[in-house]
């Protein structure tokens, strides 16, 4: 070949050496090619096989030629696949390429291979024999297994991240809410993402003999950085409430702590409803202060409802000298007060429209007279209906005074 097509210019003088490197024998190329060659009769009986393939299989030529069919060199599963799919397709198409099989060697070991076959026809168009090329696919199999291992590793890693996020989230929420005599309490946390810790938080805890403190809030941002702020906000609120239960004073403390901690170009702040609750008579007195948070919704036993207006109430931690004020609410039997974060009122409903506070009010007012658990159940159902539309975490905390004589009227 080289003689017929000499290489470009300067290589001609090297032609004799060059040609020595080339195949001088088609027979040698057939026998020692870097792939297996196999010719079979139409019934699969092996007629010719090269040395490379015999070497892979560990057979002598006389073990196989005229004695075995190609399918007998395959594993049981491979044999079935060969008989039911490979051979019929080959007969139909005349050629078939790149099919993965496993060869069974004389010593019982298995060798993954890729098989390509063509049917050789005579001048009369009649099929005469089948030529098969077999490529060693061990490297490819190893590569595939490597890919599979990497994928499993990635999946394990994702599970680990989600477990971590879940655990961290749980540490930011109270394991159980304190029991308040004469008051029904219910809460719910809806995480928007399994991978990231959200920044919503709530708690209800005893202060003095007849007073309970509670809060619900939302830290800006998500993930570990937000979780640090959430944790700081939570224990600052609890500690401050013990020191002085006035909700406006508690928020003032938190504002000072957060603003001191996070200034500059990466401000961290939260919105909070802070309150205390004093059961008395047949109901309870609630005092609320809000810091930049959507107003609490009060659903009265008689079916009227209102957002509790709290004057002032700036974002907590964002700005110096924020102002907070308080509002008082008296809860009577059948009344329920719902605190929520904006994951709910900013959720996208069916299309792309955002759910609004007014829609929430309308939806819940119909439940009256209701109970804290019933309100939480209703809102949980609402969130489930939004599906992916809930882009942010949502925390809910409901306080209600049961009607005498049962949970539900």
């Amino acid at each position, binding site marked *: 070949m080289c003689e017929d097509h000499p290489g470009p210019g300067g290589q001609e003088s090297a032609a004799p050496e060059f040609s020595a490197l080339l195949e001088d024998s088609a027979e040698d190329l057939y026998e020692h090619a870097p792939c297996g060659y196999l010719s079979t009769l139409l019934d699969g009986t092996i007629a010719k096989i090269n040395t490379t393939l015999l070497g892979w299989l560990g057979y002598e030529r006389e073990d196989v030629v005229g004695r075995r069919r190609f399918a007998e060199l395959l594993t049981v599963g491979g044999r079935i696949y060969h008989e039911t799919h490979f051979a019929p397709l080959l007969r139909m198409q005349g050629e078939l390429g790149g099919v993965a099989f496993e060869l069974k060697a004389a010593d019982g070991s298995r060798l993954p291979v890729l098989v390509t076959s063509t049917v050789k026809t005579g001048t009369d168009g009649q099929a005469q024999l089948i030529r098969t090329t077999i490529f060693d696919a061990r490297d490819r199999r190893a590569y595939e297994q490597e890919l599979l291992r990497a994928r499993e590793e990635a999946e394990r890693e994702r599970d680990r991240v989600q477990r971590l996020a879940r655990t961290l989230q749980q540490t930011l929420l109270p394991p159980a809410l304190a029991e308040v005599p004469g008051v029904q309490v219910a809460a719910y946390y809806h995480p928007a993402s399994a991978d990231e810790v959200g920044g919503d938080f709530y708690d209800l805890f005893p202060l003095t003999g007849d007073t309970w403190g509670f809060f619900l809030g939302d830290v800006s941002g998500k993930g570990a950085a937000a979780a640090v702020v959430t944790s700081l906000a939570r224990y600052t609120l609890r500690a401050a409430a013990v020191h002085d239960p006035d909700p406006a004073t508690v928020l003032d403390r938190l504002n000072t702590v957060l603003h001191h901690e996070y200034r500059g170009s990466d401000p961290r702040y939260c919105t909070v409803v802070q309150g205390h609750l004093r059961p008395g008579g047949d109901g309870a007195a609630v005092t609320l202060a809000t810091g*930049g948070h959507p107003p609490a919704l009060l659903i009265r036993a008689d079916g009227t409802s209102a957002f509790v207006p709290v004057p002032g109430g700036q974002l907590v931690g964002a*700005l110096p000298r924020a102002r907070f004020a308080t509002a008082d609410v008296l809860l009577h039997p059948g009344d329920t007060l719902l605190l929520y974060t904006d994951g709910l009122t*900013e959720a996208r409903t069916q299309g792309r429209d955002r759910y609004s506070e007014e829609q929430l009010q309308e939806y819940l007012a119909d439940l009256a007279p209701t109970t804290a658990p019933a309100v939480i159940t209703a809102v949980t159902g609402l969130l489930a209906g939004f599906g992916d539309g809930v882009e942010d975490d949502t925390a809910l905390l409901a306080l209600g005074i049961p009607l005498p004589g049962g949970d539900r009227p």
Partner: protein
Amino acid sequence: MTGTPFSVTTRTTEAGAVVTVEGELDVATAPRLRAGIDTLVLRSGQRLVVDLAGVTFCDSSGISTLIAARNVAEAAGAGIALAAVPGRLRRTFGLIGLADFFPTYPSAEDAFGD
């Protein structure tokens, strides 16, 4: 509600800079406003005006970015103002008490007027 694609454009004047935001300012888009503000060079005594006329929605990430902008302006000795805050946003900003910290004007021109 989501008709306007999000965009941030900035222009500088003698008196400071105007950043015009359009579309939904949320967790996905806030970094672009942030990047726009970071390109500005503010001098002492100037004013950074954020024009919100075309903003259809603003979530906590958007508010964070506005607060960050205020901090950036303050660090440079400049002031900050909001212009043309749409009604929907004005309610949110009122709720969180932002108005006390961001002088607000009907338009960017008005913001440079005094």
